[in-house]
């Protein structure tokens, strides 16, 4: 009954005309950037963040969340029609989706991707709704030691799941913490690493760093080589999958939704990993695994369900604990903070309109996405035809305007260009940006909770081992850190797909 009351509050917020408009803008831009290669949801969210300064927090978060789950829908279109994933989470959709398109079945592939995304997205919102309240109540018992160790655990899992060398990922996380701590000390207001620059007093902005690492560097990588894209020329027809298609996909949709949701809760690129694991599971349980890679519709339904379900799961740690499990959620945390809202266990009680408004807006957003991605598929196919030589100047222009609009300072443009170069070199030398950004956001929170814990315990580090949850988190974190030294764990880690391998 209480849940129904909350849903009522949520819908009364989500259905306000302004919030509906921002929800539409979010899912529309999400689909657009999902379709377009060269700019991902992180870049798009940081680009549009300044636009939300004048809106209510509800409208801002509804729009930014819409970009995230909308991009998962759009990513499949390029995978199926061009064999190039718009998003890393849609990489596996290429395997069977493109094959289906070559066989003249682009319509059912696109249809199943959209319906699968809708079903899984909706199921994951139900999961979020059911799981978030008890978890938030439980989190009320957490103190600084629990928060500190949970953040360490989250960061460690992200590093564990990072592609390639773990020391490199750890180094990036350490670099991110240092960047995050620049500015005034939150306890005694002492300037730290500001080099007497007034612009650094408030710290380095999240937006210029993210835009540089994920926007500018991507453009640089794309212009260093000539890109050619071949779009399937066959006419797209019969978007509604047949009953045979549905019958073949039902198991994949259910398994993909469950897998995606629970993997999404874990830190570190849940949408990407869950889509790969879903594909592997479907191939394993199939009576005809030889069909996979040759146009099996389950190979589209499972991963697309999984990557959308993961987006709902990813909201749980952010909304209930205030800890973002991935870079995109870190961006959302930044947006919450800009609007003066602290996500965490108290948010549900202090800001029920925002909490439930965002959740219910996802139902509405998923409905809008179904319309955007089925009857309007033709528009996205046309968007795909825009050549990169026209696209990249516009991406750069939006990055420049977006970054400048945050603080109306040219300093941020310089920071963005600097991190564009850093990001470009990082990609060349196999360093990942995700641990850096997550550590950048978590760094100040970690420092704060570490210092509070030590003050509480009068300098006794055993506080992290005598409280059960803190101890469990630390032991798990240590396990993930040393696991590459164990041969079978090292082998398992290498098998995990990541954005970089995509």
């Amino acid at each position, binding site marked *: 009954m209480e849940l129904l009351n909350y849903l009522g509050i949520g819908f009364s917020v989500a259905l306000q005309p302004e919030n509906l408009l921002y929800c539409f803008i979010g899912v529309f831009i999400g689909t657009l950037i999902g379709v377009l290669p060269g700019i991902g949801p992180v870049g798009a969210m940081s680009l549009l963040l300044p*636009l939300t300064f*004048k809106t209510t927090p509800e409208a801002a978060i509804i729009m930014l969340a819409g970009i995230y789950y909308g991009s998962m829908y759009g990513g499949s279109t390029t995978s199926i029609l061009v064999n190039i994933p718009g998003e890393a989470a849609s990489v596996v959709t290429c395997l069977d989706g493109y094959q289906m398109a070559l066989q003249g079945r682009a319509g059912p592939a696109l249809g199943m991707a959209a319906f699968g995304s809708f079903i899984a997205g909706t199921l994951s919102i139900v999961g979020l709704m059911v799981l978030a309240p008890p978890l938030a109540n439980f989190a009320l018992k957490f103190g600084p030691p629990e928060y500190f160790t949970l953040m360490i655990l989250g960061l460690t899992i992200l590093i564990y799941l990072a592609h390639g*060398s773990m*020391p*490199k990922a*750890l*180094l990036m996380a*350490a*670099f991110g*913490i*240092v960047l995050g*701590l620049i500015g005034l*000390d939150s*306890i*005694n207001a*002492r300037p*730290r*690493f500001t080099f007497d620059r007034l612009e650094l007093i408030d710290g380095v902005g999240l937006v210029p760093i993210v835009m540089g690492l994920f926007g*500018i560097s991507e*453009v*640089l990588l794309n*212009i*260093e*080589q*000539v890109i050619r894209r071949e779009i399937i020329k066959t006419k797209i027809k019969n978007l509604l999958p047949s009953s045979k298609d549905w019958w073949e996909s039902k198991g994949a949709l259910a398994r993909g939704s469950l897998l995606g949701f629970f993997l999404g809760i874990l830190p570190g690129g849940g949408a990407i990993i869950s889509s790969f694991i879903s594909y592997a599971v479907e191939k394993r349980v199939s009576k005809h695994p030889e069909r996979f890679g040759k146009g099996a519709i389950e190979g589209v339904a499972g991963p697309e369900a999984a990557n959308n379900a993961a987006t709902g799961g990813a909201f749980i740690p952010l909304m209930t604990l205030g800890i973002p499990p991935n870079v995109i959620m870190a961006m959302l945390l930044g947006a919450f903070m800009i609007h003066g809202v602290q996500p965490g266990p108290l948010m549900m009680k202090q800001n029920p309109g925002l909490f439930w408004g965002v959740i219910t807006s996802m139902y509405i957003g998923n409905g809008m996405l179904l319309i955007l991605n089925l009857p309007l598929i033709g528009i996205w196919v046309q968007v795909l035809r825009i*050549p*990169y*030589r*026209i696209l*990249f*100047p*516009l991406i*750069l*222009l*939006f990055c*420049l*305007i977006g970054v*400048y*609009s945050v603080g*109306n300072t*040219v300093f941020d*443009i*310089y920071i963005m*260009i600097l991190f*564009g*170069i850093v990001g*470009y070199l990082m990609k*060349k*030398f196999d360093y990942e940006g995700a641990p850096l950004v997550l550590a950048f956001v978590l*760094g100040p929170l*970690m*420092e704060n909770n*570490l*210092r509070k814990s*030590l*003050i509480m315990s*009068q*300098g*006794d*580090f055993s506080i992290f081992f005598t409280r059960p949850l803190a101890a469990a988190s630390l032991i798990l974190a240590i396990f993930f850190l040393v696991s590459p030294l164990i041969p079978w764990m090292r082998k398992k880690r290498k098998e995990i797909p990541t954005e970089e391998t995509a």
Partner: protein
Amino acid sequence: MGIGVCYGGYDLELGTLQAPGSGFMFFWVGIIMIGLSLGVLILAMRETAIPGELKKVLWTEIRWKKIVSVLAVLLLYAYVFTTLGFILSTIPLLIFLFKAVEPQSWTKAILGSIISTLTAYSVFQLWLGSQLPRGLLGIG
């Protein structure tokens, strides 16, 4: 960088374990960075690579001049952005970008730049209320 962070942290005051100071976290993260950098260095040195192979993999068939020129123009844009203002600085930037990487005709480049700039100006400045610099034209 780790050494610099470590020194900076030490300089900021480490405090005590009972009351950690402003430099406490910097200092220890700096130590971790130094350790990790050494680790990465040792791992890289242990890897057997064919001489020149890395250079070949990373940098061959790369349109170097394009990247450098785009970066240089972006820096120049940032430098003149507030003085010239949004419109006067953005139109030449876009003309360059449209022409630089995959050359297009002058007409397309100029028209595309003017349309894109004015559209962006209308959306961001007029509709969304961003405060883009007025510059020489004094528009804003």
